[in-house]
């Protein structure tokens, strides 16, 4: 047993954290590229800090923050749809903070109580494999995805953990409610989509692999991530902004209530939401800023030209029903579309 003991002592020392460095713990779904870039830049400006980020689905972030409520581990929650932030705010998980740029924020893109602020506007898109599908063949609108021609060719990111997918599905239910009167018609729509869906990918990477390697050809995803994948991995992806309009998500940022390093967290918050920070996020990471004071000439050309037709989504209604709808989807829609089509 002696060698083991020696090993144990050695490891205990190796595991000691570097002293004198203040960690800032960031939970975020924004992906490695963006997080590494901004963490590095921040650490260069503030060598006394170490930015420790964990990348996970935005619903995972919410679940973690809630689980750790009594002993918060995260200092800052960066990214995810406003609906998730709104729910966290209601459950008392967030710390109120008014950033220095409050005066140039848009009321629709922040919490009325100033618990969270919108950083980016993220349009949802239909993504497809551009090696196998020409722009002419690609689906033009959400309803086109229900065409039997796409049966077995759609792969979808497992929606429960994904803020993006939760919003897309909930928005579609809302839209069908406006058309048909009840959530039932929305679930009917999703059932048809499920019938065309080959499988649900466990995480974004599994989704990218499936589309890049032609296990599936079409998916529903968000614009910045599609562009980032094309840019960094040269994957054969292209996107369509659905003709009838797309849910425009406000991605948020907030301080976690009871965070261990509140002052550092505030500084990091200001840093990543500063005007230069947001401009760089727009140029390098395809993120459309939610601040009003960034002149269009600072934005990349594609973003200046981008015409987004926003689907009229009442995000308050959506936030009220999302949980129950996603549960119903999991129970009554997932994996059952084909069966209901056959009946």
């Amino acid at each position, binding site marked *: 047993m002696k060698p*083991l003991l020696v*090993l*144990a002592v050695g*490891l*205990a020392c*190796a*595991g000691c*954290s570097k002293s004198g460095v203040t*960690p800032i*713990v960031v939970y975020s779904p924004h*992906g*490695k590229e963006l997080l590494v870039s901004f963490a590095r830049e921040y650490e260069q400006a503030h060598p006394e800090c170490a930015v*420790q980020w*964990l*990348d*996970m689905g935005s*619903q*995972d972030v*919410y*679940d973690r923050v*809630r*689980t*750790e*409520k*009594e*002993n*918060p*581990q995260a200092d800052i929650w960066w990214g995810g749809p406003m609906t998730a932030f709104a*729910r966290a705010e209601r459950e008392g998980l967030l710390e109120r903070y008014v950033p220095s740029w409050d005066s140039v924020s848009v009321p629709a893109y922040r919490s009325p109580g100033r618990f969270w602020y919108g950083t980016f506007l993220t349009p949802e898109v239909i993504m497809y494999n551009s090696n196998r599908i020409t722009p002419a063949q690609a689906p033009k609108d959400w309803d086109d995805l229900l065409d039997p021609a796409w049966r077995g060719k759609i792969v979808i990111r497992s929606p*429960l*953990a994904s803020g993006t997918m939760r919003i897309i599905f909930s928005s579609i239910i809302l839209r069908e409610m406006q058309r048909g009167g009840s959530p039932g018609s929305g679930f009917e729509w999703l059932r048809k989509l*499920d019938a065309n*869906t*080959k*499988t*649900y990918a*466990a*995480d*974004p*990477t*599994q989704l*990218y*692999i499936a589309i*890049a*390697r*032609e*296990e599936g050809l079409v998916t529903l995803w968000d614009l910045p991530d599609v562009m980032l994948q094309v840019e960094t*991995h*040269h*994957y054969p992806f292209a996107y369509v902004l659905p003709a009838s309009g797309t849910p425009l998500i406000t991605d948020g940022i907030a301080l976690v209530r009871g965070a261990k390093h509140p002052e550092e967290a505030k500084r990091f918050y200001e840093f990543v939401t500063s005007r230069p920070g947001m401009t760089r996020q727009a140029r390098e990471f395809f993120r459309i800023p939610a601040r009003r004071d960034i002149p269009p000439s600072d934005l990349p050309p594609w973003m200046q030209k981008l015409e987004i037709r926003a689907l009229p989504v009442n995000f308050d209604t959506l936030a009220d029903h999302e*949980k129950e709808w*996603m*549960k119903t989807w*999991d*129970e*009554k829609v*997932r*994996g*059952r579309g084909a069966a209901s089509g056959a009946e």
Partner: protein
Amino acid sequence: MRSRSPATLLAISLLVAVFGIFVLYPLGATVAESLHAGGELSLDHYRFLFDMSNRVNLEAVGNSVYVSVVSVVFSGVIGLFLAFVFTQCRFPLRPLLARLAVLPVALPPLVGVIAFLFVFGETGIIPRGLQLLFGTAGPVLPAGGIAGVILVHVYSFHVYFYLFVSAALGTLEGSQLEAATGLGSGPWRTFVRVVLPELRPGLLAASALTFMSSMASFTAPLLFAGGKHFITLQIYASKLNGDMDLAAAQSVLLTAVSLAFYLFLTLGPARPSGYARKGPASAGLITPGKLPGRVMVVAAFTLLAVELLPVIAILALSLAREGSWTTQWVPSAYTLGNYTAFFADASLLVPVVNSLEMALLALAASLAFGVTAAFLVSRTRNRVFSTWANLALTLPYAVPGTVVAVAFILAFNRPVLPGLPALLVGTFWILPLAYFVREYPVVIRSVAASLEGMDGSLLEAASGLGAGPLRRFRSVALPALLPGILSGGVLVLIGSLGEFVSSILLYTYDSRPVSVEILAQLRLFNIGAAAAYSVVLMLIILLLLRLSGGLLASDRRMSYIL
């Protein structure tokens, strides 16, 4: 009953306290939570689980049970077959190959599933290779969905059957078979009437173990199941959706099914009683000279090759250049970069160090608790009491990892008792504690197996010669228990090092283990880095097995412990 010494009483009260706080209390908290809806006492969640108009949860349990039963059948057939060939046939390299056959045990659950995905998944090496070979339009025989989950289970769990059957066959006396043959019994009749009864306890034990592991399986359904529901995934989904009390009710349901099988295993059939045999073991039921023998050996070699493929694939992927594997059947460019990175940037090793550290903590706790518990229980004279005490103590054995995590979150996200050092969720300590709860039963089982072989009169003699309880334990019991402690300890380390299912729900930034890092790297699309971490993990586990004196070779030990 004899009066107990203060040391014994102290040990007993410590055991009861630890068991109460870390096993009973979390499970109790889970049951309590499941009986609440909206803050009020209610059976709503159970009504929902058994709601006939919305059978999603029953369907999920059904899928899990179906997959588990099929996994048991196929694991049994393949494990039995391999065990037969490797114990009863003579051919070159047999000892080495017999060791390789247990390799899937060294593959941590997450690594195994991912490796499997890259080899047998829709765009894996084999389906893509066959597509190239035959010039078909799509990949040939891709594994996915329910079939994919079953294949992963069979890949990982047939080893249980292999170990148990090899152990039983190892104790089969050659003379029994000779007698049967001498009395005019043909090979088939000998197999059914002589061999099978010997194997029955081992087969039942392996079946129950495979069943429990399949029911608890989380990673395989997560990555393969697509649109299908599994009960472990439902727990995760409910938790993610913010329905902690529903997750608790689903956990209770899953644990109940798993526990039923555990009781069946422990209370039902007797365990194999091989140690007492005296005659030489049989080897040579089948001679490879004859045609059927040759066919069997070739088939076994093929199975073994399939078994090695995922390991080789992980190795290859760790050497593949990033982005060089899209529609090709194997990666097209290679690099050592994923390994040199470990030397260039020490922070990359943090997850490995974390895992080692937490595994050692879990080991220390498991040994302290497990050895003491097994020893104390074995000293009682009351057979019924000791059976039930052992059963209760090894209860976590039947609790799936997802449930352990849910229970820990429910129990330890607030201070346990006022005055105790605060809460555990979000701290470093929760993971080693979860590993401890998941793994210590293996120590109890392995030490109990050693104790069965120990002569009780030795202790009485020591006592008669005036040795106190501590002295008796140290000088008499410990040496006899050492093999059991060693093999149990190694299994605790292996289990903790690769643990994923509880870790993913309980880790923090400071305690993130290798398995979580592998998943994170995969999510970040660093497949090569994920593979490199997997290789490091596999090497550590193989090294441990090697250091422990070739546990892989002593199948018999393993079959008693598992």
